[in-house]
């Protein structure tokens, strides 16, 4: 599985997309995330584990309190996703360009 596959697989779940959504606004503690996403701590922890193992989210401990963990999005994974989407855009741009050229060539040929 490539990093991009891992990103997409992790985002395939709507609950995990909600977690990512919440983290877009900045790093959050697990407690805050549970509240925002209205999930129980065990359920949230399961989803955070998937996001972490798939590399979308990083986990940090707070200096003064070892029990508190802060989660944040890892930007590089989303940049890969962006690059992939750009590639798809180029793919279809080339295809539509070829379609246009063909359709217009055919129409000209029909007229003559």
């Amino acid at each position, binding site marked *: 599985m490539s990093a991009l596959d891992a990103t997409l697989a992790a985002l395939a779940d709507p609950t995990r997309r909600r977690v*990512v*959504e919440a983290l877009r606004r900045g790093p959050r503690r697990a407690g805050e995330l549970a509240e925002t996403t209205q999930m129980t701590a065990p359920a949230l922890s399961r989803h955070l584990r998937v996001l972490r193992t798939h590399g979308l989210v990083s986990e940090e401990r707070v200096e003064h309190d070892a029990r508190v963990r802060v989660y944040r999005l890892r930007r590089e994974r989303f940049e890969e996703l962006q690059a992939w989407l750009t590639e798809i855009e180029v793919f279809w741009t080339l295809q539509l360009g070829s379609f246009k050229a063909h359709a217009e060539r055919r129409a000209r040929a029909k007229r003559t």
Partner: protein
Amino acid sequence: MSPNDSVRVTTTVAVEPAEAFEVFTSDVDAWWRRGPRFRADGARPSQMRFEPGRGGRLLEVYDEASGDAFEFGRVLDWEPPKRLRFEFRGRNFAPDEVTFVEVRFKPAPGGTLVTLEQSGWSALRLDHPVRHGAQEPAFIAAMGGWWAELLGSLRATSRARRPR
């Protein structure tokens, strides 16, 4: 990349919508580019084909006689001269992964405005309940918006963080 949607491309073609739809589907092999970047198996000679109508397949045919072909997906909506929608899978997709391509043909000055949009990514599973419900287009639109918004905000974030 468009700010409104992550993967949407348009072109204006100098023929009427009905002809544009006809060429897009019947003539797909003539315009669909060749080679490994565009075809599922770019190394082999192939013929692209849309089987007309809802439920038809988009195929890359290698051997007509033996039926050897790659199926990109099924046609979900076949509404000449306005709209075409089909599933679009790559060769490396898992069986439950699918994306959707919608093509709209709209009369425009000088011909037809063709808008092609690919959405769904692998986030929309084949067995997703939304695929059986009426809210499917809305769901896909929402997904597209979600990606666009997410990517937009991340782009903004990375610009802001870039050292000067």
